[in-house]
């Protein structure tokens, strides 16, 4: 069998003296929750979740998008413009909003790479062990989001008595999650994301009775309507934030959890 050695120029030198160019892994950015059958083969490439904060990315979306665009859509565009990608896969199914569908067209117009649109209507749940576990909420979110790139295989026990819950989409400012006691349940679209059923409306609006729940939506996100409606229905707290959480929003969440006896 031939042995090989890496060269600095991206080629491999085989023991028989021939040099072969190594196939570079393609850089593929994705947004939302594309179907598993689309994501799975892409994991052999370098897969980047464009919804997440990526260090060093400069903000250029402001001039390209209306000011009433939510931070997550802005972030997807900022990341897409900065990362020198080979392809973008963006879910535009009923689990996403019109802004995401519009953004797919914006990306198509601004970048010279393929923009693949998917429709994730999956209803076969992968389960929600992370959302229901006793872990700190910020850790849960990291695991759920990382799970799209690297599927998690953790043996997690559900918290038998979650002290509180947070409903919504993953927040642009993760400091919101530090306000919750460990084991607080993750509900809403984030839960659907872990379950790989982003268009499962029934799961998204399902809220356990009697659990102190904060209903969060990104400012300018259409989910604000549902967040406020559910907060009224379930005697919870509705908050919205545009990017970084203000002190007043943090104080409202703290006070709500305090007076509802949710601090452990």
């Amino acid at each position, binding site marked *: 069998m031939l042995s090989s050695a890496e060269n600095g120029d991206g080629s491999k030198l085989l023991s028989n003296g021939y040099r072969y160019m190594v196939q570079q892994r393609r850089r593929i950015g994705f947004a939302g929750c594309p179907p598993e059958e689309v994501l799975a083969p892409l994991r052999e490439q370098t897969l980047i979740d464009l919804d997440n904060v990526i260090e060093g990315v400069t903000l250029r979306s402001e001039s390209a998008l209306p000011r009433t665009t939510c931070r997550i859509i802005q972030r997807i565009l900022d990341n897409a413009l900065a990362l020198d990608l080979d392809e973008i896969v963006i879910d535009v199914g009923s689990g996403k909003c019109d802004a995401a569908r519009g953004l797919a067209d914006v990306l198509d117009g601004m970048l010279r790479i393929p923009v693949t649109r998917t429709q994730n209507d999956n209803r076969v749940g992968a389960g929600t062990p992370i959302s229901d576990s006793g872990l700190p909420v910020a850790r849960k979110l990291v695991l759920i989001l990382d799970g799209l790139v690297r599927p998690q295989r953790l043996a997690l026990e559900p918290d038998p008595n979650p002290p509180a819950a947070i409903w919504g989409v993953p927040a642009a400012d993760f400091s919101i999650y530090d306000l919750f006691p460990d084991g607080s349940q993750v509900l809403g679209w984030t839960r659907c994301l872990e379950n790989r059923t982003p268009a499962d409306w029934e799961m998204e609006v399902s809220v356990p009775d009697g659990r102190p729940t904060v209903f969060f939506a990104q400012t300018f996100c259409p989910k604000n309507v549902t967040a406020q409606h559910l907060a009224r229905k379930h005697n919870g707290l509705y908050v919205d934030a545009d990017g970084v959480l203000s002190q*007043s929003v943090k104080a*409202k969440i703290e*006070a709500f959890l305090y*007076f509802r006896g949710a601090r452990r």
Partner: protein
Amino acid sequence: MGVLGDFGTTWTKLLNTQSGDRRVLRTKDAKGLVADVATGHNARRRAPRHVNELIALAHGGQRLIDEREFLLLDVGSRDVKYVHMRGCELLAMDWTSTCGALTGFTLELLGSYYGLDYSAIEPSEKSVPVTCGVLGMEQLFELVSQGVSEVEAVARFARGIALNAHRFAGEPKRLYLSGGMCENQLFLHSFPRGVDVTPLGQFVLVEGLIGELEKTAGR
């Protein structure tokens, strides 16, 4: 026993629970001052124990108001917040630092600029739509340029703040008021007719820290 502090945007309120001494000083003059328990916009790094302002407001109300159910509105120099309590249950609350931004601060500023005695100004029937202090001030100067007297323009501005704060709190028929605006007679009389406003003064949040101090001492 110890020192409790509400380190607000403009004013710092201090209570020494041992001597009973109460002090109000400008926050800019309170540099380096520390307390045992603190609340307020500038409270972090001022005390080993920090209590969030909404919690301090609710606890202050529980100490000072002899009713099981109350709505307590705090109009500060930077923001507006309220809690609606029934016993230990929080029925509603909110805190805005955008729509009510800098309204109290602006009223104070206008008072010193025009040299006004707010206790001598009659409330106005009209109001300036005050969404934030800066925008409100722009409208106020517009009125002055149209020939409205400074006193009337400021009275409309005060009424605008009162209406805005009342709406923000859910338009209650009866409310308790906290914060520096309690001492502003013009503001107190600018709420809609029929609304029962009881001013509690500037020390409501500080009073709300007493329980936390006692808890800390018991540890």
